[in-house]
């Protein structure tokens, strides 16, 4: 039993759709995010994201070591993803993700999915918000926006 409200992990594909107005899924994802934020404010859920994915979307991939270290040591809760807490990725998580996504294994998958699965497992997250159908293979409670109307 956890004392914290249930954690809802915002997966990379969802973060990207929320952050990019030109993304095809942006309207539905943004609307879903709005409601998740309202639930966060009422303390019904905690919003989390894999640290590497959140940093990449907040700051981009071309970061100096200093900026990366600063974000790692203290991430300011500002901007679009202010309510989201980062699940910081350590060496052990990278090793586990590499083993999870290894080609030829049951869970042969790309690095992003593998890392998300590892963080879900280590942080006991069962609810994932995503637009990526790859997660349907796993025993997770998926929350995903309806597809955008044609």
């Amino acid at each position, binding site marked *: 039993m956890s004392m914290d409200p249930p954690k809802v992990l915002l997966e990379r594909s969802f973060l990207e759709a929320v952050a990019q107005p030109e993304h095809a899924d942006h309207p539905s994802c*943004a609307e879903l995010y709005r409601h998740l934020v309202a639930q966060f404010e009422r303390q019904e859920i905690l919003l989390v994201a894999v640290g590497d994915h959140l940093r990449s979307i907040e700051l981009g991939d071309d970061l100096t070591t200093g900026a990366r270290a600063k974000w790692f040591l203290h991430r300011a809760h500002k901007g679009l993803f202010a*309510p989201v807490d980062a699940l910081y990725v350590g060496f052990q998580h990278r090793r586990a993700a590499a083993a999870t996504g290894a080609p030829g294994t049951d869970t042969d998958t790309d690095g992003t999915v593998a890392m998300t699965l590892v963080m879900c*497992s280590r942080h006991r997250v069962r609810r994932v918000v995503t637009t990526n159908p790859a997660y349907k293979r796993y025993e997770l409670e998926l929350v995903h926006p*309806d597809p955008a109307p044609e």
Partner: protein
Amino acid sequence: MSMTTTDDPTFVPPSSRVRLAGAVPYEWFRPVRLTLMWTYLIGYLVWLKTRGLTVDRVSVAIAVGIFLLCAFVGKSWRTWGVLLMDCVAYCLMWLAYEKTRGAADDGVSFFGLFRVKFPLQQTIMRDIDRAMFFGHDPNVVLQDRFWSNTIRWWDVVAGTTYMTHFVFPMIVMAVLWATSHRQWARFMKRFATLLGVACLLFIMLPTVPPWMAGDPKWHIDLFHELHRNAGRGFYHIGFESFQDGYKLALSNGNGVAAMPSLHASFALVVPAFFLPWIKPKWLKAVVLLFPIIMLSSLVYLAEHWVIDGLAGWAITGLTFWFWNRMEQRTRSIRATRALSALPQLPEMATPEEVPA
């Protein structure tokens, strides 16, 4: 509405889904941590039985530190870094508390230039108690009625309850530290605020406690001498060597740091923190009996006036009120930042919400 929790159209039947535990490599450090924590618990209980309860701050901090080492084995370097910073803050909090509390009866020095010393309150708390109890002194009444050379069951209850003050909140901190850093931080905010306010009052309102008010050595003589042996009931049930530590802990303290009662505050802060997770009303009532037993014990053992305990409870209540509001405000600020950064969308139908 734009969200769903169903898995159509690329539905994977539940029987075909991969379990997360099967997909991700097993975390071998987890059983190691659990084994170490259970070993620690057994070791602590053996120590408790054979050597007694550790009550001085340093020993308790060492005990908590060893537990945390067990609980954090195999965690990431960042987690260890956060733990290290937490530990520094924890030690600074206690150091500031001990220094302030210890200096309260000498007044406060401002950069060595001048010293402000507040007058010792000798009668006011007693007068408030007498006003509340129709002219009676609760400490005197309880000791006259119940204290004897023979140790009775109520002495055991009072002594044991009194002694829990030295370890109970620290056990809670350690368990929260190991299980949820978020909840640990919430608890520590309240706890540290409580300590800070108490220290301020210790300085501004140095107060003679009941045992001192009746002790001929101090020439205050508000009533006859009261017995002061808070731990005898605890000693009676077989904890052999706790008294050395107990006396050591007291020797670093300040005899007139009585208002408010931190014994009463600590006894309330733990149940109050966990109350939202306790659902049955009868259990809530049982849990809230603990601070009442604590205050009754403090009065019986002549350690505090009733008003000291009530003030401690009031400060605890205000601390919770303040931090509950602050946390709600922080959540609202973070939510507002996110929503204001979202581009405005056309109004959509009211969605069904994600089940909490």
